């Protein structure tokens, strides 16, 4: 329990540091962190499925897309969500993500493993296709431009203010998901991940558990979409393409699935390499590729697995030395 407390304190400390340091850097860095934090919400939502329930979804971008398109359409067509009603849009975004997941979940949850992967992939592509082809609503390939960020007492057009808002949403999401995975419900999800059959025999309705997890993940995806739309001010089918879902999956794996924060670190690293390093050197893609390959080869549990591996090695060394001490047996 104390170890868990140390972990929580470390995360809180790191976030506090982020909150102090980032606003004092230059505006481009602030923008990057804002983007990474928004995407991190999506990555964490995926982690609930992948890391805690054992369901690898390739369609998570769909929920981001629904939230983002909802925000953009409401703002540009009906001028909703540019004042205090921004909060209404946040709620609607969350609900729309959840509703979409509730529908998709009916189709997807029946499957597991690679079949689940394929179904979520197909559903994600359906949403992409809709965004791409439904010109009158989504602007098709051109997407939708949001020209201003909401203003309600505070002006979110200011990058620093917007960073604080996003940070707030991020922190609340992280806390909420942490509580969720620590709850009895979260425990039973882990049980399903480890051995679904046993859980079913123990009397758990595993389908319902997975379905609820899927809907919750969708809801957080919708939230990230609302924020994503305002981050860059453009929503296009490009946000919904398969690579967005794959990115989320890779970030989770890179940081370490089943840890929540791991995905956040993954998001920071990938955004850092892809959007910051790419402004510095032209060979950033090799670095990104290298990071992926090395992680998969040497850290199958992701970056968050490093402390455990170090501990493991230390105990192994200790055992070895202990054995050596025992070794000189007189013959």
């Amino acid at each position, binding site marked *: 329990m104390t170890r868990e407390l140390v972990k929580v304190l470390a995360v809180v400390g790191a976030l506090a540091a982020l909150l102090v340091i980032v606003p004092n850097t230059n505006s481009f860095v602030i923008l990057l962190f804002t983007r990474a934090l928004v995407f991190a919400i999506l990555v964490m939502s995926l982690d609930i499925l992948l890391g805690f329930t054992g369901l690898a979804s390739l369609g998570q971008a769909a929920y981001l897309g629904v939230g983002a398109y909802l925000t953009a359409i409401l703002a540009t067509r009906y001028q909703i969500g540019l004042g205090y009603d921004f909060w209404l849009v946040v709620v609607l975004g969350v609900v729309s993500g959840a509703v979409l997941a509730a529908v998709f979940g009916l189709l997807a949850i029946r499957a597991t493993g690679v079949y689940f992967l394929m179904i979520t992939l197909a559903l994600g592509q359906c949403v992409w296709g809709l965004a791409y082809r439904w010109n009158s609503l989504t602007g098709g390939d051109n997407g939708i431009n949001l*020209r201003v960020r909401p203003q309600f007492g505070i002006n979110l057009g200011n990058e620093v203010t917007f960073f604080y808002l996003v940070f707030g949403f991020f922190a609340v999401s992280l806390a909420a998901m942490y509580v969720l995975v620590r709850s009895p419900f979260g425990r039973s999800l882990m049980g399903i991940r480890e051995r679904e059959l046993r859980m079913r025999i123990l009397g758990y309705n595993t389908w319902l558990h997975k379905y609820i997890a899927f809907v919750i993940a969708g809801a957080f995806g919708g939230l990230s979409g609302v924020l994503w739309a305002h981050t860059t001010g453009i929503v296009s089918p490009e946000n919904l393409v398969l690579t967005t879902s794959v990115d989320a999956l890779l970030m989770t794996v890179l940081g370490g699935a089943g840890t929540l924060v791991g995905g956040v670190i993954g998001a920071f690293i990938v955004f850092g390499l892809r959007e910051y390093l790419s402004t510095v050197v032209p060979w950033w893609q090799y670095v990104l590729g290298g990071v992926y390959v090395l992680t998969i080869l040497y850290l199958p549990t992701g970056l968050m697995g490093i402390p455990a591996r170090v501990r493991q090695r230390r105990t192994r060394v200790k055992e070895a030395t202990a054995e050596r001490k025992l070794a000189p047996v007189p013959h």
Partner: protein
Amino acid sequence: MSRSRRAFGSVLLTGSLAVAMSTAAMAQAQELRIGYVAPVTGIFAQQGKDMVDGFQFYLDEVKHDFGGAKVQFIVEDEQGKPDTAVTKAKKLILQDKIQILVGGLLATTGYALAPVSTADKTVYVVPIAAADDLTQRDLSKYPYMVRTGWSSSQPSHPFGQWACEQGYKKIVTIGADYAFGHEVVGGFQRAFEACGGQIIQKIWPPLGAQDFGPFIPTIRQDADAIFSLMVGPMSLRFPKQLAASGNKKPVIGGGTSYDEFVLPSMGDEVIGHISALQYSAALDTPLNAEFVKKYRAKYGKVPSYYSESNYTTAQMIHKVIADNKGQFPGPEEFVKRLASLKIDTIRGPVSIDDMRNPVQNIYIKKVEKKKMFGYDKDELWNTVIKTYPNVNQFGQFKKDEFLATPVYSRDFPPCKYCQ
């Protein structure tokens, strides 16, 4: 980017030299910071490279000197994604403090970058992104934007008229199903039907389609010609598969179906195909001949319109800055001056209309296999067979009436003669 770093290095070097020589000299050495956004990685990397090369080629030619201003050229990779383009543009504006933002390949990117220019009051010059509405119905939203390239439907308007003059009565269109395709095909349909022609069928294969097998057999047999609008690899596959199907009808198309970006990779099946664009590498003018030869010597390929448009854009920016004694006149004034420019360029005389889109020659071009500019091999060239001088974005139509109709889309203009 190494390029920008090199540029930065040279600026640093000249800077320190100036300090060493005299402080007065340094006060005079002005700097013009141009930020450039193009897809240097990803599936559009090749077009992105052509764009950057075109701009860089001009800078090298004038040794980065715009009438006394030292040009610092900073390239950022947008990776073909509109939101990355926004981030990178923000980086250029906030961190590098650029005065002029240039670039963007896809229409989406144009739509993504234009609001950034408005929000940050930074000049945005659009050399490639051709989305019609940037300089039409949405113009008022983007006071800091000037287009130096073209609008998608601009070549289509004279081309439709040309098709009438050839005696075509019924044409089938087949075009990539996205905004750019809708605009090129839409412009052609409006012009062709305005002079008595009929579009009897519109086929929309998805963007990036590999197999046209499902589409080619549905082309109606009573058509006099086929109008195609392909982009990238689609441009290569469609004529091949069409030829393999035994097609005997004349094939005409939008500029990107046959531009110099794809032409060198095409086979003899495209000989005789006709397209329209504001540039052809086979344009027989001394200015263009020199450009093609020098460009080819340096980069090993014939310049595409991506390169030409960026070369010309650099030239136009140069003219404005040089006319102001090497000073950047401030964003509002720069936009005003660039928008009132009249200049002779490689593609011919160019001026900018009151909606900040170029007025320029549109060339009707026929693919021919021949020798050109003294090269000793037979190659495919886009021979210019007719020139429509000084075409603006509305072509033969009245501006007000044009703007009162919606932007071209899959459903506009409606297909009256389709069955």
